């Protein structure tokens, strides 16, 4: 089994601060981390490798410093790491990103065996939202299995697999075939700590650095800004909530009266809630 896991190095958004006065983004000292959702995907991939044998290759597209994220992924236990880094990719939106990544996955397939499963995290916390996975699946025509909560079974010979997928009001049981793309729902597993061997391999083995050409990406017009239909025009901080809390009038009123006023104020602001609470029986 050859499994490829796409990860992304993102700023640790919990550390992003907006300057209270100038409302600008304070980026000093904001460390980078592996996109938390991708760690669930990596753990799932490692579990599949440990159960069915094979190798896990980790791929990321980003600036040269994204190598740190790959080193961490290797320390968790991945077998090989590829960093896709090139000026042409700067400013890529999700469409251009999925194009570049899918070409790189294909190239990895040529050198290390076509991947049976491509894992990605559900989404990233810094901007893209659940579009790169489907984009890769569509371009490499892999079966697209998103929001997967459990890989029930894989039969390497018949190349069939069974998964459970989170849907709006329930869980779907799906049967599909390899090769496929799986995005993993958060919380389904917990990333493992690598062993000493993993840590040593991470410290010693080289991270493969590929530019556009190495990854077999010919059409540069599909990359970076030119390949991106969407573009960010403005980034700004949400304005602080204008009004302070509406203070309920409490002077010379009994607790019961204030409580009644409060409930009235709540229902005035949330009619849907009022209907739900005051209607008779199950609507």
């Amino acid at each position, binding site marked *: 089994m050859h499994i490829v896991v796409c990860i992304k190095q993102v700023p640790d*958004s919990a550390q992003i*601060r907006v*300057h209270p006065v*100038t*409302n*600008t*983004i304070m*980026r000093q000292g904001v460390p980078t981390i592996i996109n938390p959702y991708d760690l669930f995907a990596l753990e799932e991939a490692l579990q599949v490798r440990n159960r069915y044998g094979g190798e896990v290759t980790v791929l990321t597209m980003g600036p040269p410093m994204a190598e740190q994220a790959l080193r961490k992924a290797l320390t968790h236990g991945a077998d090989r790491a590829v960093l896709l880094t090139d000026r042409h990719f700067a*400013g890529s939106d999700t*469409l251009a990103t*999925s194009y570049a990544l899918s070409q790189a996955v294909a190239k990895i397939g040529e050198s290390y065996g076509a991947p049976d499963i491509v894992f990605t995290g559900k989404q990233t*916390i*810094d*901007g893209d*939202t659940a*579009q790169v996975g*489907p*984009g890769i*699946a569509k371009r490499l025509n892999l*079966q*697209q299995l*998103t*929001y997967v909560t459990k890989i029930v079974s894989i039969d390497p010979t018949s190349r069939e697999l069974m998964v459970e997928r*989170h849907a*709006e009001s*329930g*869980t*779907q*049981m*799906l049967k*599909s075939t390899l090769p496929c793309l799986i995005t993993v729902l958060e919380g389904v597993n917990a990333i493992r700590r690598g062993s000493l061997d993993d840590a040593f391999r991470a410290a010693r083995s080289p991270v493969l650095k590929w530019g556009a050409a190495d990854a077999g990406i010919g059409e540069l017009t599909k990359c970076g*800004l030119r390949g991106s*239909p*969407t*573009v*960010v*025009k*403005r*980034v700004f901080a*949400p304005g602080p*909530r204008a009004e*302070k*809390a*509406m*203070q*309920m009038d409490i002077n010379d009123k009994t*607790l*019961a009266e*204030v*409580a009644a006023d*409060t*409930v009235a104020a*709540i229902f005035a602001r*949330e009619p849907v*809630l009022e209907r*739900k*609470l*005051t209607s008779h*029986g*199950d609507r």
Partner: protein
Amino acid sequence: MVARKNETPANAVGRASSGKKLLKCFEDHRHVWVFMELERGKVHPVSIELLGEGRRLADKLGVQLAGVILGSSEGVGTKPAIEEAFAYGADIAYLVESPLLANYRNEPFTKALTDLVTTHKPEILLLGATTLGRDLAGAVATTLQTGLTADCTELDVDGDGSLAATRPTFGGSLLCTIYTLNSRPQMATVRSRVMATPQRADKPIGRVIQHELTMVEEAIVTKVLAFLCNDGSEQSNLANSDIVVGGGLGLGAAGNLQHLRNLATTIGGGVGCSRPLVQKGWMPADRQIGQSGHTIRPKLYIAAGISGAVQHRVGVEGADLIVAINLDQKAPIFDFAHIGVVACALEFLPALTEAFARRMPPHNSIKGMDRGRLDDQE
């Protein structure tokens, strides 16, 4: 993508600032479409909200609003969805009916939607940011090689008719406005409970354009074996309760948490607390709301005796309505609550429970709604 000089907000990047004209081939894309998501035949509330939003955008652009329905004729069928489309403001409906569309699978739904879009060329396509909507939108956008902005909190159209989609970034600490420059349709997804639910008006069914799904079951690799519907019980944990009642040190002692639970049981809410209560051992750690606990997005959050440290604030800011009860009117929680009651939480909770009970029908069975699990009575 974010500010280059780390002090100034990012201004326009690349082509956006040059304001290039729309490519010729996209000029004939018109009208606003809303994908109606069906859940066992019933229309998902987010699609209704999007129809309301779609109507507003269509009126601003002076174009039509269309509802897109993909489903199968078995069971409830697609008729109720078509009625809902027109009742909430659609001018026209596009329908693809096929047994292959009974249960959601990516391949048939993507094919059906992309065929409709390539034939009738909408300029804006809105979908709900549900697991179905995001799975479908990603695949359709890639097939059409067009732009998709997900989880939008605000939609608008500029003077030149292009869609301005605003969404949170960097974990919600910032917002950004994204444009789809020269590709159509401009796709966007929106989460439920972000847009207002429009008024319903009983209107006759208008024009329905039906399309065939040119696909056979054998060609579809992924099969749906089963569907386990969760009966809402799983809803009851804090993270996705509609109502949450939180207790803080202002309650005085562990014994007084009973008042908190009485209120929660009465109005069907989950019970949570601030970090100090966990620290004092009054409540288990999985009840903690805040940075190192749960992040909640309920319709209503009642904070009783919580001062509102910043770590607590980031955990509750997603709530639609925050009611704070605290004896100290300078408590930080009043800076981000919507409704404030300066009173002793211990005394006010019973009165509030009583006030709610009076407005609710007697012994109203609230089993049906998603409510705090009964076994919260630890």
